[in-house]
């Protein structure tokens, strides 16, 4: 009797399992049909982008409605990874258009010839973010943000300690063991911060990093580890009140009952990051690709960037979220490094940086 019951139960479970397999296996996944309509025109356009890409569904739906194209979004890795996969597949790209190449990797994409010219109208305000050296305007600026050192203002108030302001301040004994920054080798804000120090100190940057490490700076593996875990105002209960993050970060550290942020970006320590979109050489649907680039700089998408990707629009006259308008203060004159120099020196810089920071 027990056996019989057990058998029935086992059979039932197995039957459920089989049914589940049948109902949600391969057949359950949608296949993306052909790529063309009756007249041989492409019906879909494939956007390659990085893991931080995010836009509201209704904006994507509106684009598909208007263009008559299906937008297929394929993600992978960060800005560097996206650029490198384009270089590896330039003979036969896995998509039509790319978004997310930044100014640290833009020159590599241009040098390797992964992009094709396209007729895209830039919105007012975008020109100032054009990648230096991109004379054919292959890369359209879509968003920008600054990587800046952020501090926990409540910490310094409680300790009665003067707040640091400059890169040089971070090497002062008063701020020993207080600073954490993501690795330049494995994270894009980490690389941006390294570039900020190179912009500030030029050839002398290795000496600066030696002083910084000598003052107890901590290298975290990524932004998450630095900001969410080690920083005192991140998600966890960190113990370092100075961290490398973004100029928009203070907008996210407002206590529920307050109106002022508990953190502040140090505006003299910033490095400007710009993200670009471009049509890929060898795209199956170059027209659709150009439409995607134009869509990314429409006022609707530009306005959605802060809430969805935590970056600023490049177009003039786009309203910012309320908290951003009041709390995300922007540097007047962020540091820049010539992209051509970045392209030529990046690997050597990273090697030297790794040597200094892992000593």
């Amino acid at each position, binding site marked *: 009797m027990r056996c019989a019951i*057990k058998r029935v139960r086992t059979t039932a*479970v197995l039957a459920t399992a089989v049914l*589940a*397999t049948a109902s*949600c*296996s*391969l057949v*359950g*996944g*949608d*296949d993306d049909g052909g790529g063309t309509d009756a007249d041989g025109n492409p019906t879909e356009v494939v956007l390659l*982008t990085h*893991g*931080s*890409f*995010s836009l509201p569904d209704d904006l994507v739906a509106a684009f598909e409605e208007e263009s008559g194209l299906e937008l297929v*979004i*394929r*993600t*992978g*890795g960060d800005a560097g*990874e996206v650029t*490198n*996969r384009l270089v*590896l*597949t330039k003979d*036969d790209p*896995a998509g039509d258009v790319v978004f997310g190449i930044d100014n640290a990797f833009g020159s*590599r994409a241009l040098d390797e010839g992964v992009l094709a010219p396209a007729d895209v109208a830039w919105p007012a305000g975008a020109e100032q973010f054009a990648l230096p050296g991109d004379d054919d305007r292959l890369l359209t600026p879509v968003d920008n943000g600054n990587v800046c050192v952020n501090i926990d203002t409540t910490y310094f108030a409680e300790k009665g300690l003067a707040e640091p302001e400059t890169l040089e301040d971070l090497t002062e004994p008063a701020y020993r063991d207080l600073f954490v920054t993501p690795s330049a*080798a*494995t994270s894009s804000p980490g690389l941006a911060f390294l570039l900020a120090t190179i912009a500030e100190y030029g050839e002398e940057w290795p000496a600066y990093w030696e002083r910084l490490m000598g003052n107890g700076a*901590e*290298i975290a*593996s990524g*932004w*998450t*580890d630095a900001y*969410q*875990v080690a920083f005192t105002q991140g*998600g*966890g*209960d960190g113990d370092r009140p100075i961290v490398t993050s*973004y100029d*928009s*970060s203070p*907008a*996210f550290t*407002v*206590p*529920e009952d307050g109106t002022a942020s508990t953190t502040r970006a140090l505006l003299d320590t910033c490095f400007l990051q710009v993200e670009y979109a471009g049509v890929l050489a060898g795209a199956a649907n170059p027209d659709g690709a150009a439409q995607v680039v134009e869509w990314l700089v429409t006022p609707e998408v530009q306005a959605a960037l*802060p*809430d969805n990707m*935590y970056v600023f629009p490049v177009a003039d006259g786009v309203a910012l979220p*309320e*908290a*951003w308008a009041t709390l995300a203060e922007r540097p007047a004159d962020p540091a820049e490094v010539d992209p051509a120099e970045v392209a030529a020196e990046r690997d050597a810089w*990273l090697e030297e940086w*790794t040597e200094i*920071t*892992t000593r």
Partner: protein
Amino acid sequence: MTRTSTGRTAALLGLAALPVGVLTVFFVLPVAGMLERGFWPDGGFDPGAVLDVLARPRVHRVLWFTLWSSTVATVLAVVLGLPAAYALYRPRFPLRGLVRGLLLVPFVLPTVVVGVAFRQLLRDGGPLGVLGLDGTPAGIVTALVFFNVAVVIRTVGSAWEGLDRRPAEAAAALGASPVTVFRTVTLPALRPAVVSAASVVFLFCATAFGVVLTLGGTRYSSVETEIYLLTTDLLDLPAAAALSIVQLVVVVGLLLVAGRARRVPDPTVARHASAARPRGVRRGDVPALVATGLLLVAVATPIVTLVLGSLRDDRGWTLRFYRALAGDGATDPAGGGATLVAPVTEALGNSLRVAVDATWMSLLLGTLVAVVVTRRSRSRAERRLRGVLDGFFMLPLGVSAVTLGFGFLITLDEPPLDLRDSALLVPIAQALVALPLVVRTLVPVLNGIDDRQRQAAASLGAGALRSLATVDLPVVWKPLLAAAGFAFAVSLGEFGATSFLAREDHPTLPIVIFRLIGRPGELSYGTALAASVVLAATTALVLLAVERLRVPALGSW
């Protein structure tokens, strides 16, 4: 009717054809493509650049670190896992299935999440900050053990459970002390399973990616993370190719060694189809049970850290992070709407669907492989062929996910193999990840089946299928279910390959968690922790269901 040796070899190759084909397309081809880019950087053969890489001091440091950290972690995982394998598979006690399921959860959690939990635990001021493990190799080794102790428990445990008890009882009846019995009877019989488990654990440790990357930063780099750096950041393909080859060579060498050690003098003695009858707890079991309890606490600590984090914000206890899971427009009062990539509920659905596919794929392939490599060989050539096949199917363990991911991109790009868009890539990649586990779960069991039973069945007129159904299936049934649950759970938590291949419109749960954790704001972070708890709970449920499903061994009567 006797079959000729050629006929047997043909049958062997026939069975192996499907798994070999799949592995060729989805493993050999992509890896070869990446190696080609390394050795032929500009079209011309240039091995010099590759060889130069091996002389770099940093490469030496990386190799040494990989070697010793994996060795220490493997030894610790075996030492800690053995008592638990015994306690959870020999005596019967209440909640045994629950504890088994819980101990397996870490193995399938996304490494990024565990990395964050570990850092919160270990850093100065954290609950375990006094140990001073933060940022040290010890922290990495601890995390590796945390992930892999489950492999030892599962592999050795199920072997232990199926162990014929009579030799041990006979030895005890003849006056041998429990220690002597363990040393002279039990351990030799378990050796294949222990060596299996240890070799798999070593491979997992040596190729661990997320753990080393999150806990090691740039200071401690393993071969795997170094390949990642070289490929994704520096695009230094010759160097990446050099390290990939080193990794492959080491893995092949290891598999050879492990294969030799795994061989038991007389497999028919090691295991008997008649499984042990369950029995209650005896006094002698207490040390093992206590050790298991301590292990459970140790494994639970990072998970509890996660759970607590998901239930607390800066003002106190709250459920708001869990409420945010269902919506996609959760509003963060601090900074506008923090939109979820996809509602966690939807991502969980995607994860489950993908896991179903990955499970049947890995089971199908894994079973074929296990059958092929365990049938008694009649000739030396046949045995050698089986050995080669066995090793071949373990190779996916030893290759960097990044190499594989980029390899997919550059080799599977032409019809009929333009699979870069295929929704199947993710389940296929996950099936490859789970394949060696499935094989290693099944092989010791199949190995233990006395071939004379098959011969008896054959002499009584049973065909190959019939003897498979009456001899192999009854014994392999339970491990097969366990392997299925295991593959399913692995797929649920798989992050490395998935993050590279997944499409934005169908994110899996680990991907959504990773996205959330990379966003500013307390709500995003808390929601990521809550989603991790959901993932861990789902995984635990699956593993517990597998425990429940176990049918009584048919061979025992």
